[in-house]
């Protein structure tokens, strides 16, 4: 059975192995033991806090474990807040209108405005699934388990949550936006800039990035065309978030122009539609057929989330198999949270 759980100190090697497989451009997971250990320490500390009333510097990093083998095959995370230690930068794609009534000219000029608007906001991040496990809805489990955690513990996150999506670059890692814009100011390579950012070193952005708005209409077409667009490999991930209610609100990455998607936590479909019920352990009917459901427990440090299939929609009580209950770390009559895996599996 595939189970989502908080990362723990024993997972360093597995996490390193995953990090090695992510490749360039995946800045939140780099194969560097010291950095990864720090990440694990932070996550362990975050899940251990049991009296959180408002989000601060927590990093909820989780892993997807194949419980039959004990292998870690994926990871996902939520940062309670970004930008409070190091500034968090983005470009806002705005509009400036220039009009001359006299000449009948009216131009709505798009502009890129450097900002730190996401400062203090929760971010979902670090989603990675091993290639061999990209089947059986593992990807959806990995991505949406976070929403189950957020639904259960909304006080640990901000009202709004966002996700940065990888922007367009070619097979050599060349980003059209970077070539037309960032390069002129940073005097370093996209890759190098990306790595510095990954290491939490953002001082250089404040130092080197111009403050004034950039007129988008002056950028070459290939740069304009990638603003707000995701890398082709990221199209499915974007669609998945959009189905959950995430929206592109004109914020893009300052390097590659990839979109940020945002949602109010309470408006995320999996949060809004999920409900608590009490678990019964027994022989559920219609198991292994029908619709898929995410089921999680209501615990912080022992958070678990799994995927089940039922032909009959769960009611106010939820019957789970012993294996399912064990995977969820619950006993009978403990509360579980349940939601349809995707918006289409409901009524």
């Amino acid at each position, binding site marked *: 059975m595939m189970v989502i759980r908080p990362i723990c100190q024993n997972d360093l090697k597995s996490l390193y192995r995953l990090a090695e497989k992510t490749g360039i451009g995946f800045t939140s997971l780099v194969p560097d033991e010291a950095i990864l250990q720090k990440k694990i320490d932070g996550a362990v500390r975050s899940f251990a806090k049991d009296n959180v009333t408002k989000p601060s510097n927590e990093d909820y990093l989780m892993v997807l474990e194949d419980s039959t083998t004990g292998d870690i095959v994926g990871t996902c995370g939520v940062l309670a807040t970004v930008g409070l230690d190091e500034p968090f930068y983005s470009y806002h794609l705005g509009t400036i209108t220039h*009009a001359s009534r006299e000449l009948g000219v009216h131009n709505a000029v798009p502009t890129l405005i450097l900002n730190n608007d996401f400062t203090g906001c929760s971010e979902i991040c670090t989603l990675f699934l091993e290639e061999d496990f990209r089947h059986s809805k593992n990807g959806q489990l990995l991505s949406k388990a976070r929403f189950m955690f957020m639904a259960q513990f909304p006080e640990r996150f901000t009202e709004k949550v966002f996700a940065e999506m990888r922007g367009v670059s070619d097979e050599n890692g060349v980003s059209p936006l970077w070539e037309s814009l960032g390069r002129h100011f940073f005097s370093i390579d996209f890759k190098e800039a990306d790595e510095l950012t990954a290491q939490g070193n953002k001082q250089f952005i404040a130092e080197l990035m111009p403050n004034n708005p950039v007129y988008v209409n002056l950028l070459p077409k290939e740069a304009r065309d990638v603003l707000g667009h995701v890398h082709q490999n990221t199209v499915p991930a974007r669609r998945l978030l959009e189905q959950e209610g995430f929206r592109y609100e004109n914020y893009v990455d300052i390097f590659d122009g990839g979109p940020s998607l945002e949602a109010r936590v309470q408006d995320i479909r999996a949060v809004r539609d999920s409900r608590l019920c009490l678990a019964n352990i027994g022989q559920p009917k219609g198991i292994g057929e029908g619709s898929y459901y995410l089921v999680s427990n209501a615990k912080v440090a022992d958070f678990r989330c799994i995927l089940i299939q039922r032909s009959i929609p769960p009611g106010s009580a939820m019957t789970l198999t012993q294996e399912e209950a064990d995977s969820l770390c619950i006993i009978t009559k403990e509360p579980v949270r349940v939601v349809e895996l995707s918006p289409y599996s409901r009524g």
Partner: protein
Amino acid sequence: MYLVRPVDFADLPALERLAQQVGIGITNFPANRERLNDKIASSRRSFQTDVVQPGDESYLFVLVDTSNEKIVGCCGIDAMVGADAPFYSYRIDEVVHASPQLQIHNRIPALYLCHDYSGTSRLIALVVDKAHQNPLAMSLLSKARLLFIARYPERFTKRLFAELRGESDKQGYSAFWDALGKHFFSMDFQKADYLSAVSNKHFIADLMPRYPIYVPTLPEAAQDVIGVIHEDSSQSADILLEEGFEFRGYVDIFDAGPTIEARTESLHTITQQKTGKALSLTEKSKGAMHLISAGHLDSFRVTAAPAEPQVAGLALEKVTQEKLAISAGHRIQWVAL
């Protein structure tokens, strides 16, 4: 022999012919009969008005080929630009962005829209018929203005500037316009250029970018022409640069042609010019070439002729005296060419 004098209404057909010859890129000399007529009228008024401090006066001069009394050139001075509508330029400022940790120190030039030349006197439109673009005619026409300024300093500001035509090809294609202005004006260079000459310029404030433009983000072809002089203007540019005009980092908002400026008091012609009595040159053609002016305001005349400075004044040939409509003993102004 050449003579420079204030423009008159009778010169309109000649001016129109000249304007057509010039073409695109000299916004203050449009080939529009009505507009040219207005300019002549304004110039006449300016020469005839009592002025205590510079205002919206505009002085136009013509270059006459005295062999046939034909008009072969034109130039002028605006007493002060920006009185009605602001006068726009781009100021090239460098922004410094440095990261000590990465050991990067970037100086990035950026174009800032400004009206730093508002309230300043401007030399306008030096236009000379192709057949007469010789150094003598060009220098005479250009420097005649400076003699006028030296004579009537109260009519001009202490700072003086001139816009030099920027790089564009025969078809009027400007790489700078194409990369920048076009996106904001939604019209071609010719039209913007023309509107800028004939309209109230208000559309510039309405349509121009309000934020600075970082030069490195422009296409290279556009970067390459910033501050570059159109080859047709290089001769008149050289005359002004030798006079002491300097480029201080300002360019035209349309074609990025350089703006050059000077304090009037430090210009060569103005510091060197002298006033004194006209004397008669006894030996023919003896003496070095001089610019010589005579006459008050609308009878102001300048010519270039051989002359000899003497203790009592400047000795001129008879023919020169005639051209200037003076005789020995008249008060004149001169400078060695």
